[in-house]
């Protein structure tokens, strides 16, 4: 099945999909982020050397840790919501409420973890 797009990039960027679209796109970004990280991590563990040391320094940086933790936690929490709604389709009627619950679970967990990462990095 081929795709034919008749909207410009600018129109696409202005798409107002609201909450469900935000979780959809963050799920993809999180999955891709983890995919790149895990693949690099496996290859570097296998190859070692100076490239491995350089990449390990990136992994240890607080900004990268916050990014990858965001990817992993959001993908995990959002994936659980998708799985629950898909395996119990009657709940799909409440998908917007489910997204609010998801944020209520994700934000405190991520906020506290990001704070701990920053406090550790900055010696607090």
């Amino acid at each position: 099945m081929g795709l034919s797009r008749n909207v410009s990039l600018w129109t696409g960027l202005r798409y107002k999909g609201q909450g469900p679209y935000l979780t959809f796109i963050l799920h993809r970004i999180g999955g891709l982020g983890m995919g790149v990280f895990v693949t690099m991590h496996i290859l570097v563990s296998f190859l070692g050397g100076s490239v491995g040391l350089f990449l390990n320094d990136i992994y240890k940086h607080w900004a990268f840790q916050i990014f990858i933790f965001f990817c992993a936690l959001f993908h995990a929490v959002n994936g659980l919501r998708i799985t629950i709604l898909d395996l119990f389709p009657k709940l799909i009627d409440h998908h917007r409420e489910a997204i609010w619950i998801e944020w209520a679970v994700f934000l405190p967990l991520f906020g506290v973890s990001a704070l701990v990462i920053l406090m550790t990095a900055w010696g607090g």
Partner: protein
Amino acid sequence: MSDSKSRTVPLSKRGLNFETLMWYFTRLSALAMYALMLFALIGALVMGARNQMNFADVMRWAFMPNAAHVQSTNVPDLAPWATTFWKAVAGLLLFVASSHGVHGLVVIADDYIPGKGARKVIRLLSIVMLASVTAIGLYVLWTS
């Protein structure tokens, strides 16, 4: 509450093809990863993680139960963490995660690549990537 009611079609009317099976696999493998991580977390607590590791290191072990992930902690003896059993659990988690991830990449690629030929190439590359990264990952897990 949304305006329109959801409509579910029974499996007999939808048919069961490869894509349907992978749809189920994606969701069930997510649950399997939750179960394996919970199992690794409980295993870590049984092996004394509560007094010898901080929470971040326990989570690192839970995400991938590989002995190299507890090397920098206060665990005095790595032997219980490096058994064949934990290597098998880590290998299973790696296989489930990589197949879940590679199928996810195929789904994303399908959204942006319209051509049939290009999609075939992406699928072939995905299978090669799944096989090679999983094999290298298993080697790293088994020899670390």
